[in-house]
């Protein structure tokens, strides 16, 4: 094909003078995803330690999961954490249309359910400690508390993040930076549900039934 104008002229740029910019949002969400995968490996270490200690010798005369944890109460916590993740996920749909109210509403409901989940967990741990099964009583109990507290701490930091997002959104709205933050927060919150279902099945159900 012939072109009317010459391809190369004195003003033709043979290279880009500025570096090509990476996708602003994707670089943040992918970096955060890699953090979540490394976090999963921390939980793998905790699960492995728990599995090693899950025997009567390491319990040192104290009960194992079947005598400490209630599977039905754990199921209630499962519903609460799934409800919380569902609320935050639905709220994030407000990013599509710039609906700030939907985003904030989802975060508020998700945060309240997250707080309820933590309260369930903390009250269970306090009841176990009050019954003489505190974290210092045996290797098994140390591993159990470490696993449960690590997950609860993640939820707690997620709540702080949700509170911080209220301030960010109120001040800057749903700009690109806050969109990236909200996408990372959504992934973080969804990750807590994934970790919790493993905790529930492995500790509450498998540990409680054998």
């Amino acid at each position, binding site marked *: 094909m012939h072109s009317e104008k010459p391809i190369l002229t004195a003003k033709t740029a043979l290279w880009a003078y500025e570096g090509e910019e990476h996708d602003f949002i994707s670089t943040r969400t992918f970096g955060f995803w890699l953090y979540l995968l490394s976090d999963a490996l921390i939980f793998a270490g905790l699960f492995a330690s728990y599995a090693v200690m899950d025997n009567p010798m390491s319990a040192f005369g104290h009960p194992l999961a079947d005598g400490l944890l209630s599977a039905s109460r754990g199921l209630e916590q499962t519903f609460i954490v799934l409800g919380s993740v569902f609320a935050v996920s639905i709220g994030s749909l407000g990013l599509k249309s710039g609906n700030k109210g939907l985003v904030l509403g989802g975060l508020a409901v998700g945060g309240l359910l997250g707080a309820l989940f933590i309260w369930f967990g903390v009250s269970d741990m306090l009841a176990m400690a009050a019954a003489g099964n505190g974290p210092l009583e045996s290797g098994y109990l140390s591993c159990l508390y470490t696993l449960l507290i690590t997950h609860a701490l993640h939820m707690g930091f997620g709540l702080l993040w949700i509170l911080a997002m209220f301030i960010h959104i109120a001040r800057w709205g749903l700009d690109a930076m806050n969109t990236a933050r909200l996408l990372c927060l959504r992934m973080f919150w969804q990750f807590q549900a994934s970790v919790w279902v493993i905790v529930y099945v492995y500790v509450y*159900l498998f540990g409680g039934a054998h």
Partner: protein
Amino acid sequence: MGTHHYDPTQHPEVRQGTALRYVLATVISAGAMVAAYYVAMSKPPLVTLLEELAGTLLVALLAQAALYFGLDISRAQIWKSVSLVLTLPLFIISIGITVWAFSSLYGRTMPDPAIMSSMAM
């Protein structure tokens, strides 16, 4: 920090989520956990318990990976999917080898709890 001159509402990770996906992920995860609860309450033999609980857990985690996280092989998500596939073996092997090594060690070195309790009487 780079400038962000594009419309964030058009980003593929923003467009990806739908209410249906999140409803399905939540219902499947909750249903799998209810099924796991009833399996555990029926107190089946250990191997059956392990298989059925692992099955329900796998269903819940797959639903969450595909529907909550939206992992697929699209251009926007491919590297998340690849990195997850590369990390999963580490996750499983680190738990599996530890459990296998210590259960083998316990069998050779630890006293049988039943014998210990009979000696204490």
